[in-house]
């Protein structure tokens, strides 16, 4: 069993790493949410070309693994990185944002498409443009059920930010690897690392579940209609089943 001095050293290292993880996750999450929302709007554009390009973009960036993007960019830029003023942190942010915003856009697009076509028709019959319908009719309805999905995106960003350690970004996982290097206790250190992530992520998981139930209660029927488009993997099994139940009643 490692002594208290060793633990102290680890905790010092990992607190430093924690800041890196928080910075990386926060910046990537904000960029992901903004860029993902823009992508989703483009993906439901009335112009076929814009829609096609946006959907193609979403499919391609969902297909490329985050780590592949990080490593290809990092080792691809390699010698030129310094000349362009690019560092590993930026590459990690770019890779996380490109990947997660594509996921988010797909979820948002599903929610937007869940709004019945009759509402679009009704809006256009009273002379509303596409943009206006989106702003005034569609977006206000899809925002409440999408809030838990956004929290889940943030959870995904934090989990995937651990991969940045593989391109030398100073964050939690890299700190843990350093801690293993200076004192050879891999099991202790990596379990401790898992605890750090759990402390960050568990509250978010429970928060997202609570939000899901809350939006369900508060905006009940609306979200039952719209959640049809949400990825099943992002909602708790039981709630998913309840949603399906709701849907059945609606049909």
């Amino acid at each position, binding site marked *: 069993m490692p002594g208290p001095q060793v633990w102290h050293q680890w905790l010092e290292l990992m607190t430093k790493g924690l800041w890196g993880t928080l910075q990386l996750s926060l910046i990537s999450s904000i960029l992901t949410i903004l860029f993902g929302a823009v992508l989703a709007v483009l993906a439901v554009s009335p112009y076929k070309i814009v829609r096609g390009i946006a959907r193609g973009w979403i499919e391609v960036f969902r297909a490329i693994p985050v780590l592949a993007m990080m*490593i290809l960019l990092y080792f691809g830029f390699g010698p030129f990185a310094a000349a362009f003023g690019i560092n590993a942190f930026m590459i990690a942010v770019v890779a996380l944002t490109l990947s997660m915003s594509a996921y988010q856009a797909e979820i948002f697009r599903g929610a937007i498409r869940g709004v019945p076509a009759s509402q679009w028709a009704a809006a256009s019959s009273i002379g509303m443009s596409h943009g206006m319908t989106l702003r005034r009719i569609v977006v206000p309805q899809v925002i409440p059920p999408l809030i838990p999905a956004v929290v889940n995106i943030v959870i995904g960003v934090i989990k995937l930010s651990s991969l940045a350690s593989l391109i030398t970004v100073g964050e939690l996982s890299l700190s843990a690897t350093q801690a293993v290097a200076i004192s050879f206790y891999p*099991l202790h250190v990596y379990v401790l690392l898992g605890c750090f992530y759990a402390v960050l992520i568990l509250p978010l998981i429970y928060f997202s579940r609570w939000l899901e139930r809350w939006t369900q209660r508060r905006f009940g029927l609306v979200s039952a209609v719209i959640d049809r488009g949400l990825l099943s993997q992002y909602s708790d099994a039981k709630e998913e089943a309840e949603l399906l139940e709701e849907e059945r009643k609606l049909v």
Partner: protein
Amino acid sequence: MNFAPFFSALGVTLQVAIGAWIVATIVGLVIAGLRELEIPIVDRLLGFVVTLVRATPELVLLYIVFFGIAYVGIRFDAIPAAVIALGISEGAFVSEYFRAAILTVTPRQRAAASSLGMSSMQTFRFIVLPQAVPFSIPPLVNAFVGLLKMATLASAVGAPELIYIAREQMALTGDILQIALLIIIIYVIITIPLTLAASEMETRVRSRLAAA
């Protein structure tokens, strides 16, 4: 450009993804099955374990399996370690898919089956299972796609999968752009058809449910 190393690398990626998928399905089935028994303590405990696994980055699980467990004397090679770690990680999600699929069969149907004199085993086998299985297939396909992408993590413990070889070849040949493009094309070609097939199946299964 020499494609040979990429072929064997793709083989390693597929090996990790398929292996982890099998492990995930087994782990998911066992967890979902145990939770279906509806023993409160078991259910709550497993529920927490699933949440805990979902809160742990895949890389951390991989490090625990590869480096951590080696410390107590059980040594795995890179590929089996990745199969186990990714399998457990995805298994937590898969158990939820199975539960969701089982829950799509309404209590009303179970009640109807028991009123016809069917035992709970019979109800499960003839009423629940046939309806739940189609529901769990699309998410299982999506899980496989996720694992194909997560298989890149195996490079972190030295398994010669696609990204590992890409990095090596980049350093060796300097054909940075071609290699990057090749890797992107490989992932796009494998995953997009699977994703599209899964969403197609999902639409069909759901419309069947809506029709029922």
